[in-house]
């Protein structure tokens, strides 16, 4: 493991911003800390960087202990060899792009001739080759972003950290930079930790996603895994869009399979589903169904019947975004664009049992 974070605790005053976080990243991999603002993800990142001290726990990079509260070890940030891309980019306004990027090499007393070569090389890598002589203040947001990245990788750090680097860019640039960032990270092959509140960003970039809430880890795993098998209601609602129905597990029908009884506005039905971890027969659970895993049919198709009324149907080009009222519950359904569902129409909903998951509430 290249980066190991164990039992991280960090409080501000009486608040525990980070409350026992542990994870590990293998060499060259990309891990994302995902969560809403205030969940402790940035604090975790700053603890790894050495800009915050820990109350408990330990941070090891490449087998070296950087911080250990118990061992009273603290390596100052400048001796950690970690590249950090800030949310504000933090490009020094009194220097040119090339000077910004050369700075980490200068403080490391690299040979001046080599500095020039490496700066040019890394500026080419991030696509700023023509901007070397510009002052930082003359760059656009996206270019500052690239310069910040160049400055973070130029000294070939052991670890690369990103603190919501794309959140200040507009949507289009953000989507473009996501792909770019992934390419550059692959090319330099540096182990990376990325902080974001944008689940789409996390899904695109990461090898591993760590979903956080209130200073704790809710789930960690690969993007597909987390999307398909959220550990609980919180993760399910945070990653992607899901229909979340409260109910009670009625029975198990096989290994990891069962039926959940859902009661909405007098309509009581049993739906076949997969059973997530920690779900027990007879206990309350939440059924999570992605909108693309529900079909809306004009004719009933077997039992149970979920008869509803189309409230809204928006044509998005590649799909039809529908809301269907069933009792007092509103289903989100992504239908095929060729289907023509109109508001007021009666439809029968059919959640796919293979992609319906009962999770702990």
């Amino acid at each position, binding site marked *: 493991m290249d980066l190991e974070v164990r039992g991280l605790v960090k409080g501000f005053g009486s608040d525990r911003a980070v409350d026992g976080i542990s994870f590990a990243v293998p060499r060259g991999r990309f891990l994302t800390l995902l969560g809403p603002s205030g969940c402790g993800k940035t604090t975790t990142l700053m603890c790894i*960087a*050495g*800009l915050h001290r820990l109350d408990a726990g330990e941070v090891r990079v490449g*087998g*070296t*202990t950087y911080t*250990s509260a*118990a*061992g*009273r*070890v*603290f*390596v*100052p*940030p*400048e*001796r*950690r*060899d*970690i*590249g*950090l891309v*800030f*949310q*504000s980019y*933090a490009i*020094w*306004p*009194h220097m040119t792009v090339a000077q910004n990027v050369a*700075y*980490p090499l200068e*403080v*490391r007393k690299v040979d001046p001739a080599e500095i020039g070569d490496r700066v040019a090389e890394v500026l080419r890598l991030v696509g700023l080759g023509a901007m070397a002589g510009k002052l930082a203040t003359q760059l656009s947001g996206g270019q500052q972003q690239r310069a*910040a990245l160049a*400055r*973070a990788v130029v*000294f070939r750090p052991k670890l690369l950290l990103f603190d919501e680097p794309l959140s200040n860019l507009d949507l289009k640039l953000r989507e473009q930079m996501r792909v770019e960032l992934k390419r550059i990270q692959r090319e330099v092959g540096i182990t990376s930790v990325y902080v974001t509140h944008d689940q789409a960003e996390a899904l695109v970039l990461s090898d591993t996603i760590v979903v956080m809430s209130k200073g704790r880890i809710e789930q960690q795993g690969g993007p597909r895994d987390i999307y398909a098998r959220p550990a609980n209601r919180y993760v399910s609602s945070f990653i992607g869009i899901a229909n979340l129905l409260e109910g009670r597990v009625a029975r198990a029908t096989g290994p990891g399979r069962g039926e959940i009884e859902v009661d909405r506005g007098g309509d009581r039905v049993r739906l076949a589903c997969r059973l997530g971890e920690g779900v027990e027969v007879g206990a309350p659970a939440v059924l999570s169904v992605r909108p693309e895993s529900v079909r809306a049919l004009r004719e009933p198709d077997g039992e149970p019947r979920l008869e509803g009324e189309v409230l809204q149907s928006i044509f998005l080009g590649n799909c039809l975004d529908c809301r269907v009222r069933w009792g007092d519950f509103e289903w989100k359904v992504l239908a095929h664009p060729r289907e023509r569902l109109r508001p007021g129409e009666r439809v029968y909903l059919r959640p796919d049992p293979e992609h319906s998951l009962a999770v702990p509430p």
Partner: protein
Amino acid sequence: MDHAVQVGALEGVPAAGRWRRLVSQESVATLVAGLIVGAAVLLPLGALVLNSFRVLDDLGFDTRWGLDNYRALVQDRIIRKAFVNTLVVSTGATLLATVLGVSLAWINARTNCPWRERLEPLNLIPFFLSPFVGAIAWHNLAAPRTGLLNSWARQLFGIQAPVLNVDNIYGIIWVTGIFFTPLVYLFVVGSLRRMDPSLEDSARTTGAGLLRTTLTITLPLVTPGILSGAIIVFVTSAGEFGVPFKLGAPYGWETLTTQIFSKAVGDDANHYLGAAMSMALGVITAVFVWMQQRVIAPRAFTTVTGKGFRPSLIDLGGWRWVALAYNLGFVFIAVVLPIACLFVVSLHPVWEGEIIPADLTFWNYQKVLFFWRPDSIRPATDGIVNSFILAFAGASLAMALALVVSYMIHRTKGPGARLLDFLCVVPIGFPGIVLAMGVLVTYIRTPIYATLWILLLGYITRFFPYGQRNIAAVMLAVSEELDQSSRMAGASWLTTLRRITIPLLKPGIFAGWVLLFIIFLRELSISIILYSAGTETLSVGVYYLANFENEPLTAALSIAQTVVLLVCVVVFRRVAGREALTA
């Protein structure tokens, strides 16, 4: 066993990692700066409190503990009178400065008065000049016998009795009020400029006229700014030494500062009584400054919201020429007239209240400025050299200290940050003469007494908060991430300070430096307590000439000081911009 466990925990740690936790550049620098500030601020104040309870016996040799000094404050007729005079002067000066400052700020910020941009810097000039020199100038303008204005009245209109007389408490109020008008002006003009114009516009739409809107909406909204300015003027006037010393003390109008001065030096020196009087003055000013800082200043942000507004200007019509005349009148009376008068006086061998064209000569300038000449006046000429040394070293050291202290307060944010922030406000609460009294009783038995070092210490202690505020203002505007990214790039704290922090803060550092340079170059009330033979300063030189030589020589040195200060003001405006002083 314990040892072995620790070694295990430290395995693979870079060797210095463990030590650096305690002994990093940052922690050493901040600890040293914190101790310096703490000692510099708290020692003199502590010594002041302690010494105010020591009572000198009748022979003047021994002391015992007691409350006699405080009893004297109430019972001694002269001190009681000085106390009352101080309050009258401060109140009068505050009223005058507030009326002038608010009206000038309103004209400049909110009306279409012609030449507003040109007049603004002129309105601020008195802020940078020496009130002591102002008092000397007004003495030459309006002393009963030798005042230029009075002698003109005699010649032109044949009025024999003096028309004007500034050698009394009203003269003190007049000069102090005019000199501190820019303080009110600065506090008010900022809030007037930043005020949301829709607040006024909505009043106009309800049918309120211009005058009514101004009186019922505009002025109440800037009341916190006015109050802040007024309090600062009150406190500064109470601590002002030069003006009452020139216009009051020789004519029987003593104030607390002139009384403290007479107890600090001279034949009937009694440092303990002086300490008690300083305590009385200091407590009053500290309470007022505390009120301004903690109660009034925070409120200013709730009424004046937003930024980047361009308030609508009020069309004064024909009255705008009246407004212009009013503003020009202030500049004429506060700046042009006194300086011109001093210049005229300085060209005469002796001054009898009349301009004698045949006598005009630059001889006085040669005498006071050419310090290598044998006939130069030593205290004055030494003072010029000493003041430049003090101003240069003082401004540099104070800004270095201010930089580290600001860094501690706004970046490191360690456990001591709040305390340090408080310590930085404390010196502002005490007049220079009070703090100087504290420095005097603290260090009188140490080798630094009677050297330039004690002056340097007094200057820096009293005024480094101004530099600190200049830096802090810029520091708060510069993202902390710019510093952090340098650390992440591998630079140590010191390298980061040198290559990132200081270059980014350069405007604030330089503006603060020039401001302190100006303040130190004209400083009187600290110098007058702490100087001794050989360590006179520029203002002490002026004091010496005024006391022991004649008016023209005094005027010559005053003009020289004023010219240097005006040059510094131009530099300051170049680097600091319009409202840098409001901090």
